[in-house]
C-alpha cells in the first residue's frame, strides 16, 4: 500500500476475528485495530478531522496555538497533526497518567500543563476552559463537544466496519468523549436495522470520583444517549483481566480500554448465546498496549497488576 504522506495513511484499519475468544462459530467477536493508525490510536481520526474543520472555517490560522484537555491519545494525535500543519500545541492533562504518554507528547513537541490527579479529566477540562478564556487567541478544539469528532467516525469508522462486516449485529466501544459511539453508532443504526450500539465505560477507583459535587458533574456535549442501546460500567479489575486475556489468548497487545470493551462484548456474546441467536460483535481496539507497559498491567499475576493499577487513570 502506498500513500503520499503519513496523514493519508490514516484509517482503513484491519478488522480481525478473535476465534479463540468467540463463544461459538455463530457468535463471533471481531477486533477493529485502531492502533494501526499514524500515531497508534483511534484519535488520529478525530485529530485530523477537527483540525481540518477548524482550518476550513477559519478558526485555525497558520502558526496558531492549539489548546486541548487530553490525557494522552488525542494529545499525541494532535501533536502529530500540529507538527505537520505548523501549529503549536498545549495539552492539559492529569498528573497521574502513564510516563509514556508524557514522554510521547513532549517528543512530538507539545507543551504539557498538569492538572491535579484527584478529579481526573473533569479537572483537566475545567482548567483548559479557564486557560482558553484567558487566552482567546488560542484555539481549543475541545474533543468533548466538537462535532468533527463524531463526524470523523460517521464518515470513516462506520463505513469501514459496514464494508468489512455487513453482517454486524453489535458495535462495542469505549465511552469517553463519546465521539466513537455517537458517530459510528449513528452510521450503523442508519444502515443496519436492529444493530446494538454498546458502550463500555471505565469505572475507576474512588480517587477519581472523589468528593465531586453531584451538580458539578460532566457529560460530554457530544453525548446523545439515544444513539446507544446499552451502556456497561466496567471495573478496572475486569478491564485488566480482559486486556491480559486478549494478549494471552489471541496474542493481541492492546491498551486497557480494549479490555473494558472486550468485557462488555463478552457480556453481549453471552446474551446472544443464551438466546440462541447468532451475533457478529465488532470491538473497537483503540490502541496498543505499548504505552501502558509502565503501569505494570501486563506482567506478574493478575492480583499484582491490579494493585499496581490502583489510583491510575488506566483508560
Amino acid at each position, binding site marked *: 500500500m502506498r500513500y503520499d504522506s503519513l496523514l493519508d495513511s490514516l484509517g482503513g484499519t484491519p478488522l480481525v476475528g478473535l476465534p479463540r475468544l468467540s463463544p461459538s462459530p455463530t457468535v463471533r467477536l471481531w477486533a477493529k485495530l485502531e492502533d494501526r493508525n499514524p500515531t497508534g490510536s483511534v484519535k488520529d481520526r478525530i485529530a485530523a478531522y477537527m483540525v481540518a474543520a477548524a482550518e476550513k472555517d477559519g478558526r485555525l490560522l497558520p502558526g496558531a496555538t492549539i489548546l486541548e484537555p*487530553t490525557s494522552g491519545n*488525542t494529545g499525541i494525535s494532535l501533536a502529530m497533526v500540529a507538527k505537520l500543519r505548523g501549529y503549536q500545541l498545549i495539552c492539559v492533562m492529569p498528573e497521574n497518567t502513564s510516563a509514556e504518554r508524557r514522554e510521547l507528547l513532549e517528543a512530538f513537541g507539545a507543551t504539557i500543563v498538569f492538572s491535579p490527579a484527584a478529579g481526573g*479529566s473533569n479537572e*483537566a477540562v475545567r482548567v483548559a476552559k479557564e486557560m482558553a478564556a484567558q487566552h482567546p487567541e488560542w484555539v481549543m478544539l475541545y*474533543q468533548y463537544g466538537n462535532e468533527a469528532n463524531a463526524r470523523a467516525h460517521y464518515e470513516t469508522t462506520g463505513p469501514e466496519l459496514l464494508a468489512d462486516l455487513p453482517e454486524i449485529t453489535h458495535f462495542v466501544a469505549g465511552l469517553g468523549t463519546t465521539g466513537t459511539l455517537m458517530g459510528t453508532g449513528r452510521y450503523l443504526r442508519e444502515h443496519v436495522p436492529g444493530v446494538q450500539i454498546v458502550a463500555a465505560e471505565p469505572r475507576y477507583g474512588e480517587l477519581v470520583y472523589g468528593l465531586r459535587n453531584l451538580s458539578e458533574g*460532566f457529560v460530554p456535549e457530544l453525548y446523545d444517549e439515544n444513539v446507544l442501546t*446499552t451502556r*456497561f460500567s466496567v471495573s478496572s479489575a475486569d478491564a485488566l483481566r480482559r486486556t491480559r486475556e486478549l494478549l494471552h489468548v489471541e496474542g493481541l497487545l492492546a491498551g486497557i480500554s480494549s479490555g473494558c470493551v472486550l468485557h462488555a462484548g463478552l457480556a453481549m456474546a453471552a446474551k446472544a448465546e443464551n438466546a440462541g441467536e447468532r451475533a457478529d460483535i465488532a470491538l473497537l481496539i483503540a490502541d496498543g498496549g505499548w504505552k501502558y507497559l509502565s503501569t505494570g498491567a501486563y506482567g506478574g499475576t493478575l492480583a499484582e497488576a491490579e494493585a499496581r493499577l490502583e489510583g491510575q487513570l488506566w483508560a
Partner: protein
Amino acid sequence: MAIEVRIPTILRSYTGGEKSVEGSGSTLGELFADLEGRYDGLRERLIDDDGLRRFVNVYLNDEDVRFLGGLGAPVSDGDTVTVLPAVAGGAR
C-alpha cells in the same frame, strides 16, 4: 430480600459513612424509596422531577439503568446497584 447499593464517597454523609447499604423493592424507584426511609435525604440527591438527576449515573449489575427502564427497571434479590457521579473519566 437484599439488594446491595454502592454509595459514592460524596453521598456517604447520608448513610453514616457506609459505602454499601442494603435495600428492597421490585423496581429501582421502590428501592430508592425504601432507602429514603432509613437514609433521610439520599433520594433527593439522586432524583429530581424529571427522574434520575443528570450528573448521577446508576448501574444495575454494571448496566446503566437508563437503558433498562430507568426508575422502572426491575430489581431482584442479589442484584447490585452502583451509584456514581458523571465524570470526564480518564485518558482521551
